[in-house]
């Protein structure tokens, strides 16, 4: 990958300055079945299209979320998460 990703703090950065931690996931709220746990741990959509992903900026050392198109690598939006 050679894209630029805009850290909400640091602006556009080379992808090497960041760490992509993959699709954002939803942790089960209560004790999951084995299948539910496996889905949460290992199964990712990885679909053609826009994904919501976690990124870590090695410059400011903060996490942020990004919407990235898995085919074009276009990052349409990045933002710091807000409390639910």
């Amino acid at each position: 990958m050679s894209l630029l990703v805009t850290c909400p703090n640091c602006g556009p950065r080379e992808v090497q300055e960041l760490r992509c931690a993959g699709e954002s996931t939803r942790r089960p709220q209560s004790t999951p079945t084995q299948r539910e746990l496996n889905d949460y741990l290992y199964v990712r959509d990885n679909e053609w299209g826009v994904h919501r992903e976690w990124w870590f900026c090695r410059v400011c050392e903060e996490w942020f979320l990004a919407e990235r198109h898995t085919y074009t690598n276009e990052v349409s939006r990045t933002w710091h998460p807000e409390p639910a």
Partner: protein
Amino acid sequence: MTRLDPHPGELIDRSTELTFTFDGKPVGAFAGDTIGSALYASGRRTFSRSFKYHRPRGLQCCSGHCANCQMTVDGQPNVRVCVTPVREGAVVIGQNYRGSLDRDLMRVTDKLGGPFTPPGFYYKTFIRPRKLWPLYEKVLRGVAGLGKLDPNGARGGRVEVVHEHAEVVVIGGGESGLEAAIAAAARGDRVIVVDEGPAVGGALLADREGHARAAELRQRADEAGVEVLAPAIAIGLFEEGFVPVAHGDTLVKIRASRVVVAAGAMEQPLVFPGNDLVGVMLADGVRRLVNLWSIKPAERAFVVAADDRGLGAAADLEAAGIDVVGVLDLRQGQPPNIEARGRRSRVEAFAVNGQVTHCDLVVMSGSPQPNYKLLAQAGARVVYDESRGVFVPTDLPPNVEAVGAAAGDVGEPAVPSPVLGHQGDKCFVCFCEDQTTKDLKYAIAEGFDSIELSKRYTTVTMGPCQGRLCHVNSIRVYAKTTGLDENTIGTTTARPPHTPVTLGLLAGRPQEPVKRTSLHHRHEELGGTMMWTGAWKRPHSYGPDPGAEAKHVHDAVGLIDVSTLGKLLLTGPEAGAFLDRVYPNRFSDLKVGRIRYGVLTGDAGRIMDDGTVARLGDETFYVTTTSTGADAVYQWFTWWNAVWFMDVRFVQLTGGVSAINVAGPKARELMARVSADDFSNEGIAYLDARHVRVAGVPCLALRIGFVGELGYELHFPSPHAEHVWDTLLEQGADLGAAPFGLEPQRILRLEKGHVIVSQDTDSESNLLEAAMPWIVKNDKEFEWVGKWATQQVADRGLRWMLVGFESPSGVVPVEGAQVVVRGVSSGRVTSVRHSDALGKVIGLAIVPSELAAEGARFLVQVDGRAVAMRVHLGPFFDPAGERLKA
């Protein structure tokens, strides 16, 4: 040397002579020559042997596109010598032959050729009998590939990586590229031009009359402040204007707001029998020889062309005094049969419908194709312009433009028809892979009727030229054979790299960033043998006997630099609650001034890291991690809190805080000499954390016992590290205070059965099977990270267990040695050492859980035999922990 009289456009400097060797013999050259031009000038005509048939091949394109001139230069194989400038003393050798370049024994494959080497021959032939595959493999490996790398040879030259940022990058420094660059620079933009030629000018340089215009453009570009990288090749074009460029031994990574592709045209060969004979060249290839390097390429030339550049070549050849004995302009009609004839693989005649003209050079020029390769790789669509027979790029990616010939401006060439169903010599479509029209028709007949399938089956376009000279012709052969039109057949997917590139260049400059602690030079002064641990350099030991160094800690007092430990400060009202969530055990109930061991797992239940957690205040916790885990744990904690938003802050202290562990029965006596604080059991008990002053320096003292002796881990600001270290050694001299390294520490912790995460655990290890069930506290209100997976391990039952063992026979297995149960590999030894203190060999191993019983025996594979080991549960040394708590 056979050179023409000097003329104004030539690149050579006749006043500067250089010498290199080819196959051991000296070759003269002028400054400005390429290795290829100098060899040609010296009379060499055969430059390589073809991939499969070992046919002699000579210069064809003289522009670095074809593979005909690949040689090994200074140990690096597959260098295109036609574009490689001569270096004084360079060592050049030919490749892909048995014998010599001029007499290659493997040529026999061409003579036997035909029936034995159609596409798919290898797949079909060498599959049975299966038993013979090892023999087949040995033979085939010997003949496969081009060039040789010396596996024992030193790594090639040092490579560098440079990052550049520009408003505009122009790929191709020909006429239209330079005009675009000058226009952009005039607007004040930073502009970089990347050109693969020896000098910018592109096709102008090949033209005998073009040098004045090229010089004028060069000067204007210079004045406008245009930066030029040449000879340099853009190896790909990626999203958001990212263009990596191979520039000699440097990989230049350019990030530009706009990319202008002005890559010009790719000359195309014509498809006729004998089109690969030595002496059959592309029009601009010949023109470069004549105009750039003033070489007389032949006595009698025949020109066959579908466009103007063929005629331009004829004119240039005549101007240089070469006899042009015939010109066939395909725009005025295409004879059904054209053929080059040769003797000993050198062209000696050209025949048109059987009418033979003798010549020693055939100049061919098919319809030139816009050089769309880079654009196609970047995502542009390529469509066929039927009237002109050229593929033109459209739908360019954002912020990418194409100009000049690359955009389709290649004039009005004829659409040359490949010669099919001929007699006579082979008729090549793909020179790199030795694929003929016959091979392609054979593949179609076998059912490989899509161009993508045919590509994979025949390997057409997959050779070093990456389709530059064969892509379009293979589509034409397809069209003619199947009756489909070119747009229906389509083009094959273009992928990076756009041009062959060495792995070394992609790997970049070898970088081993080293982290050193504040005490690094002290360790060196004390004779420490430094070793890598992750990115850190740490002392392995300070003398020849790590065992004695460990024993000394039991007998007196030792110091070890543990500054590499990850150190995080967590503050906030919910810091304790946060730790309860990420650790299996509980920290919210930890009393201020107390320490608890913690192990981190993910939700998959696998052990990630471990360390100690000290509570320094109601809302303040000091967390240590393993030496390699500092960044990962920081990211892990902050990631969870980016979800949870608990009221807790995280400070990474690893680099700013140094730490020294003072351990041994005399540690307390030593501390009393360097500190006014109370280091007794009343002042600081086992697993207490206290703020103290040591040698005047404010320290956090953690009383923990990784090495199994009374010990104080002192954490303090890094600038004081030498002062604290020196004071401890000086004041403890008569107590025997001495440094100990990582290896003695490994012995000491093993005596206690203490685990090193990622040494004694792996990516499959969980808390229960790593023998830490006591750490799991499931009565917390929150579902701690890893709880569910750990519970599932408990539910399914334990399969493995990490246990201690002794080697009764004294045999020392290697770490990683297999545990064998009933002849089956069942676990492994994770750590093993000889303990001087215990006088025996001890270790840790992962064994089947049923063997996790005191005294159980199991076998370990040692040098091909099974050696019995005896399980020991719990610490080997000081099992009651009396020394820790002394």
